[in-house]
């Protein structure tokens, strides 16, 4: 019976091996178009197309760094998973491991037992690759706690590891930690959004607790941003909370919103909604917008230059008599939950790029009728803001509309 070392020697004699430099050269973008990087030591077949590079090491080894673009198929799962990496038996495949032994054995398996015709094992493995100074990609990996916490996301192909990492790296700003902001903050924190910014200058009042579920009776009188931060910490301490205990206005908006990936608009007044629109069009940040009153809600995603902006939909705010607030008119406590969670869903879709975002569409929810209505919203070619390039939108005109002063005076 052969020893392990002898077996590896025998296997290496019968499989094809390839030097890391050669692999690097074949992976380089071809200068003369695909499939024309001629000079290969291993025959025209192998050189004709870019090989699929397969890392056969264990999970933790892969996570510590791998060849950019490599597919991970641990040797223990080789037979069952290799077809996911390359189903074509004649396509070129380069296998590598740490030093070239496991990949040699894997190459032998692919050739002799699975009928792959064009398999090579990379000599010296990733160790030699690194010694040569070639690029290594270190994937962002989840900790065991994160794997467990986000396991139900990881199981969804539309989210998966890549989507979860996007969520963990995302920065989402919530305008308002009230009715809409409460459920949005809780669910986005639970979903693992990396940074949650909270803008609110209000304090928790007992009349908020009918719907603002992030706050508690014990925290009445505290600033809403502090109360919300506490709830987020309890739910998911991995989330970084950035608090802005202030009211968004023309003097601070650019400073606050810049750098966020998505903004969730749940503010309770028109001037701020117009101001936000103009600033986010200029900065090209998508806004997931909702508003509520009584038993009715509206929801839309305003993605600058991809779809209409808030001003395309509503060129002018209504007069104060037709724009009552929830404080004046009342709101069903559950309603901001419904609308806020639709907002949170759209945020996650934007961050993970899953599905079709609610761009160019407005959803109306009528809780009493239990009905959803979808309306089309188109870009206005004459929109005072988004018909122009972002650089042309000046600070002075942001948030301004013709009867702004009169409106603000009327709205108090």
């Amino acid at each position, binding site marked *: 019976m052969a020893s392990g070392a002898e077996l590896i020697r025998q296997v290496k004699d019968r499989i094809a091996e390839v030097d890391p430099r050669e692999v690097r050269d074949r992976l380089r973008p071809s200068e003369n178009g695909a499939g024309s990087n001629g000079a290969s030591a291993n025959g025209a077949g192998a050189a004709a197309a870019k090989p699929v590079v397969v890392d056969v090491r264990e999970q933790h080894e892969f996570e510590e760094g791998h060849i950019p673009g490599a597919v991970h198929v641990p040797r223990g799962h080789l037979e069952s998973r290799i077809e996911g990496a390359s189903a074509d038996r004649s396509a070129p495949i380069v296998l590598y491991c740490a030093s070239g032994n496991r990949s040699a054995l894997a190459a032998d398996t692919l050739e002799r037992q699975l009928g792959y015709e064009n398999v090579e094992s990379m000599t010296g493995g990733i160790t030699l690759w690194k010694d040569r100074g070639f690029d290594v990609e270190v994937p962002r990996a989840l900790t065991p706690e994160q794997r467990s916490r986000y396991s139900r996301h990881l199981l969804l192909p539309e989210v998966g590891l890549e989507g979860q990492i996007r969520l963990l790296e995302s920065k989402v700003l919530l305008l308002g930690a009230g009715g809409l902001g409460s459920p949005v903050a809780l669910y986005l924190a639970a979903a693992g959004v990396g940074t949650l910014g909270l803008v609110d200058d209000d304090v928790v009042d007992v009349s908020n607790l009918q719907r603002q579920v992030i706050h508690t009776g014990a925290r009445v009188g505290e600033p809403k941003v502090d109360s919300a931060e506490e709830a987020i910490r309890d739910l998911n301490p991995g989330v970084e909370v950035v608090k802005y205990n202030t009211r968004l206005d023309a003097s601070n908006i650019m400073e606050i919103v810049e750098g966020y990936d998505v903004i969730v608009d749940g503010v*309770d007044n028109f001037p701020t909604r117009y101001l936000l629109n103009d600033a986010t069009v200029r900065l090209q940040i998508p806004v997931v917008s909702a508003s509520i*009153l*009584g038993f009715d809600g509206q929801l839309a995603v305003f993605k600058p230059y991809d779809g209409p902006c808030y001003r395309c939909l509503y060129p002018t705010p209504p007069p104060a008599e*037709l724009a009552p607030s*929830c404080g004046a008119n009342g*709101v069903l406590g559950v309603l901001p939950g419904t609308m806020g969670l639709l907002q949170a869903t759209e945020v996650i879709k934007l961050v993970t790029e899953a599905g079709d975002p609610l761009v160019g569409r407005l959803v109306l929810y009528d809780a009493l009728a239990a009905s959803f*209505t979808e309306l089309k919203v188109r870009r206005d070619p004459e929109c005072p803001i988004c018909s122009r390039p972002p650089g042309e939108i000046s600070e002075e005109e942001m948030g301004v509309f013709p009867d702004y002063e009169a409106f603000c005076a009327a709205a108090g």
Partner: protein
Amino acid sequence: MSTVKIPPVLRPSTGGEREVPADGGNVGEVLRSLAEQHPDTQRQLFGEDGTLNRYVNVYLNDEDVRVLDGLETPVSERDTLVILPAMAGG
């Protein structure tokens, strides 16, 4: 008879009705028929010159009448008009 969906802020003007049937061959006629039935809506929908107020969006089924023919857009019996004002509650 087509149907006009009334938003919450206009319901005090329609006696609480959420949907009002109204006659008319085009958007303008249907809305004027609504205003005849519920006079308080007249001032909320139309300016003094008889044009639609800019802060009122009107949809024929799911399409903004501004991208159709405005008040002249033909309306058939089975159509629904949605009156949509902006809301800012949060």
